[in-house]
Structure formats: C-alpha cells, structure tokens
C-alpha cells in the first residue's frame, strides 16, 4: 500500500491538473514556483560571482607572478615581491596536524556516542560535542593566546621534544608558544566536532541486523566495530574527514591568532609560520600596494580551488556509498 502512494498521488496530481481550470491553477503556482526558482538561481549566481570576484581581484598578481607564485618563498610587501610557498606549507602542515589528531579522536567519540555510551549519557554528551563547534573561532583564538599557547610552550612542546626531538619536527620550543603546532591543535578543536557528529550519524545508520548478527556469532563490541561498523561506514567517514579538512584549510582567525605570522618555512613545528587564510585576514585591511591586495586575492583563489576540490572529493566519496542519503 504505502509503496504505491508515490505513483498514484502523482497520477492524481496529473488528473487534477487536467480537470482544474488552468488560469486558477497557474497564477499562484507560477508565482511561487518563479520565486523559488529565482532564489535557487540567485544562490547559484552568488557562487559563480564569488569565483569571478576572486579571480578578478587576483588578476594583477596572476599576470605578474604566474604559477611561480606557488613556489616562491618570499613575501615582502614593501619590495613588491610575493610568493605563496610559506602559506601553502603552513596551511598543509596545520591541516595535517589537525587531521592526524582529530580523526582518531573524533571517530572514537562518534563510536562512544553511537554504540558504547548509555542513552542518558548520549543525550547530554552528544549536544556538548556539537556545542564545541558553536564556539566562535575568535574566542578560541583568544583563549589559545592566553591559555593554550603558554601551556603548550611550558609542558607539551618540551615533552614532545624530549621524546620525538630526533625527527627534527619537534625541535626546541620557542618563547611564546605561538607556533604551527599550536595552530594545528586549535584547528583540531574545531575539526573534531564536525567529524564526530557526522560519523556518529553514519554509525547509527548501520543496519541492526549486521551488528546483531556479529554479536550473535560471539564477536566482542570491538570486533563488531572493527568488523562491521567501520567497514560499512568507511567511505562516509572519509567524506566526513574531507569536510573537516575543508574547515581546517580555510580557518583564518584562530590560526592567525596562534601561528605567529612567520615568514620562513621551518621544519621545526614549534616555530612560527603562516597560512593562506590567516595572511588574508591579517593583511587585507591595510595593504601597502594594489599588488599586495591582488596577491592576497591570489591566495584566496588557491584556497577556493583547494576548498572546492576537497568538497567535490567528499561528495564523490559519499555519493558512491552513502545509501542513507541517496534514498532520502
């Protein structure tokens, strides 16, 4: 019965359409439909115009520097020399740090919230984790400067230096704690709730027959997770991680507060650095030349391209596998 409703109601609608006088039907419908189409078109146009404005703003820098901009290290506004290498490196490294810490943490939280926690804990902890995503990045950045950076400098960085110093990545801590690593940690705080809440929703969609079947075969909770839950949701979780990556790549304010606005690529993660988004936020208001503005737009263009690519990858991964979404 219920499976037949869709075609029959569509048939009914078609029948109605032929019965009703056309003028009465068409005016209101056409107006509402037109408004809705207009809204959709505006949404699409905004997106296109975003791309246009960014490319247009970047044009002087593109024609001046070309693709060499990507590999050029120096960023010297007073001398009219601009290159994106430091920012690209900083963006990549902070995002990688954030994802390396956030992915296991967020998946564990999602597992806890979907499979392990008692219901009474779930309904409280779940919203709390999502609340973490609601904290404005400017407050996280301010908190980071006052609380997190000194703590990292005094405790975490020396400890990591002692254990992993030989890799060269964890060198001697600097004086302030403002570093690429600290920026990566604050990004972790922003990315965890995104990955966790998306993954939790995915874990909840795993068919009960599968998990209960595994349990009936004598699997422990962890074996159910490893053998059934994670494999069935793997692509969805990957998509969630890609969305988290998109967030980490584009975050400007908290990173600008904590990364220390350095101009050199350091192997030592405890040194300062910069990211594309942070540099834009810090310098667009008071540029010394039009070329600097254009170079900042060029950085934004790079961010835009990377952002769209990660988003499309996330869509491609989830649409291939995400049964839940495609049936809705």
């Amino acid at each position, binding site marked *: 019965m219920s499976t037949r*409703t869709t075609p029959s*109601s569509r048939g*009914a*609608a078609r029948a*109605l359409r032929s019965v009703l006088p056309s003028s009465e*039907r068409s005016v209101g*419908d056409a107006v*509402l*439909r037109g*408004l*809705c189409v207009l*809204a*959709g078109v505006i*949404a*699409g146009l*905004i*997106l296109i*115009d*975003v791309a246009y404005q960014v490319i247009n*703003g970047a044009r002087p820098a593109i024609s001046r520097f070309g693709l060499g901009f990507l590999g050029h290290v120096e960023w010297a506004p007073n001398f009219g020399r601009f290159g994106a290498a430091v920012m690209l490196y900083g963006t990549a490294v902070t995002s990688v740090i954030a994802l390396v810490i956030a992915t296991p*943490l*967020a998946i*564990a*939280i999602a*597992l*806890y919230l979907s499979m*392990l926690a008692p219901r009474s804990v779930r309904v409280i*902890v779940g919203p709390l*984790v999502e609340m*973490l995503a*609601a*904290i*404005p*990045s*400017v*407050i996280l*950045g*301010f*908190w980071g*400067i*006052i609380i997190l950076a000194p703590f990292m400098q005094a405790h975490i960085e020396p400890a990591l230096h002692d254990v992993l110093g030989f890799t060269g990545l964890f060198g001697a801590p600097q004086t302030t704690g403002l570093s690429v690593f600290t920026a990566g940690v604050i990004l972790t705080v922003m990315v*965890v709730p995104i990955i966790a809440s998306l993954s939790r929703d995915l874990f909840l969609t795993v068919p009960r027959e599968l998990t209960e079947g595994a*349990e009936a075969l004598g699997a*422990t*909770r962890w074996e159910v997770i490893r053998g059934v839950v994670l494999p069935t949701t793997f692509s969805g979780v990957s998509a969630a991680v890609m969305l988290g990556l*998109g967030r980490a790549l*584009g975050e*400007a*304010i908290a990173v600008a*507060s904590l990364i220390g606005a350095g101009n050199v690529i350091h192997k030592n993660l405890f040194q300062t650095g910069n990211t594309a*988004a942070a540099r834009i*936020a810090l310098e*667009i*208001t008071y540029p010394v030349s039009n070329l600097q503005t254009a170079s*900042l737009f060029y950085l934004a263009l790079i961010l*835009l391209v990377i*952002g769209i690519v*990660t*988003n499309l990858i996330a*869509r491609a991964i989830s649409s291939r596998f995400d049964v839940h979404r495609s049936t809705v």
Partner: protein
Amino acid sequence: MSTDQPSETAGFDPTGPLTPSGNLRRRLAVSRLIRGLATLSAVIAVIALGLVVYVVIARGAPALSLDFLIKDPPPSGPGGGIRSAIIGTALIVAVGAVLATPLGVLTAIYLVEFARPNSLSGRALRMALDLMQGLPSVVIGLFVFGLLVKPEKADSGFAGSVALAIIMLPLIARSSQEVLMLVPRTLRDAADALGVNRWRAILTVILPTALSGILTGTILAVARAAGETAPLLIVDGIFTNQLTFQMFGHAVPNIPVSIFTAAEAADPTGFTRAWGEALVLLAGILIANIGARLFLARQRARMGL
C-alpha cells in the same frame, strides 16, 4: 553487554565456572580497552569545551556589569561599555538573516516541492549549496570586499551583513530542506485530494507544519554567523567604536572584530573588555543553540518522531 554472554557457552564444560578464559579473555580485554579509549576521547572533548567556557566566564565575569552592557566605550583606550558593539553585531546579523532566510527557505521549497528528485537543476543547486557551505569564510569576505567595499572604497556594515548572509544561506537551505522532507506525505495527499492548488498547499499546509523546524534551523544558522570574524574583519573591520545605525558606507562596530583586535594587540589593558565581550558573545550563541535544540526536541516529541 549482550555480546559477552553467548560466547561463554562455547566452552564445553557445562559444570565449569562461567568466566571467559584464554583467547576470549584477551578479546574482551581488547574490547574493554577500546571502550575505555572511546570514553576517554569523549571526556577530552567535553573537557575542552568546559575549559574554554570556564576561562571565558572566569575572565569575562569581572568585566560584566549593567554599565558594561548599556554604555558606549570611550573613543579610545580601555574602560567603558560595549553597547555600540552589541547593537552593531545585532544589526549586522539581523540584516544578514533578513537577506538569507527568504532565499534559503525558497531554495529549500524549490528543492523539495518543485524540482524532480533526480533532475539536473535540483542536483546542480544541491551541489552549489554544498560548495557554498564549504567556502572558507575569508574567501566569502574577499568576495564581498571585491563586490561592495572596493568600489565604494569604504568598509560598511551592510557589506558585513551580505557576507554573513552568504554564510547563513546554505545552512538555512539545508536545514529547511531536511524539515520539509519530514512533512508527512499524507498531508500533501490530503491537500491534493481536496483539490487545493500546489502553492496554496505549500503556503497553508506544508510550510506551517515545517515552520518550527525551519525556525530552529534559522536560529542555529544565525548563531553560527554571529561569531564569524574573518569576513567582518575584511569588509567591516575599520570602525570607530561609537554607535551608528548607518549600514551603508559606514563601518559598524561589532563584537567579533573588537575581540580579535584586542587579542592581537600587544597591550593587555584591552583584554578585560575583550573577555567581557567574549562572554556576551558566547552566552548569546550558546543560549541560542541550547534554546533551539530544546525547542526542536520538544517539537519532535510532540510530532512523535
């Protein structure tokens, strides 16, 4: 839990004690370890939230007083209140919401009610909304900078509203879409059976049913946009801290940018006011969030979902 029981019967000694041994004991230990780690992860996340909220309250509360909320700051230097920033933020966010809400809701109606499920236009629009939601907020800021600020050669509160509207639009469209899809099919069929026109059915049956959900989604989107700093810094960043209602051609003072400016300043005398502002902003956002969630939960319970 239930996982442990069946495996224990695998032992063949019916008289033996029912305790796991050997391999099973190891498997259960691993399982317990993982459970412990997962719990620990959740605890870490909650502690992180608690730490941020605690610090903001502990440092912001001393700054807070009635005067702090209803007085303007002096033209420069520390002290005074943050009335102008509160009203400015409210103004920018409200105008942004007014721009974004109709667009978002209409887009959602188009996707749910008009576009055929797998039509090209529907898929393209969905993708556009996804991409828009994925835009870094600095890129949105630069877009509005290029569109409105550069030609005018002046920061403006309205430009800030437009930027926030672009941040809200996909969020509102997405949440409205989800709520509209929850409206029971039977309501549509009933409207059809009564010979009600499509537009009338949408406006008088479907939208009212979905209204509470749409409102909740809008509030969450507004709360999200209220804390956005990067776009405001770019298009509405240079303001005097005095109250103004001129949205066009004038930068409007706002809380996020003042916090950021104070935090970046070398001189810590502005910190007290910044913490006070952070507390006001965070309180507003968290209250809106919690309120919207409670409202939604009550609504869900009433609809029996």
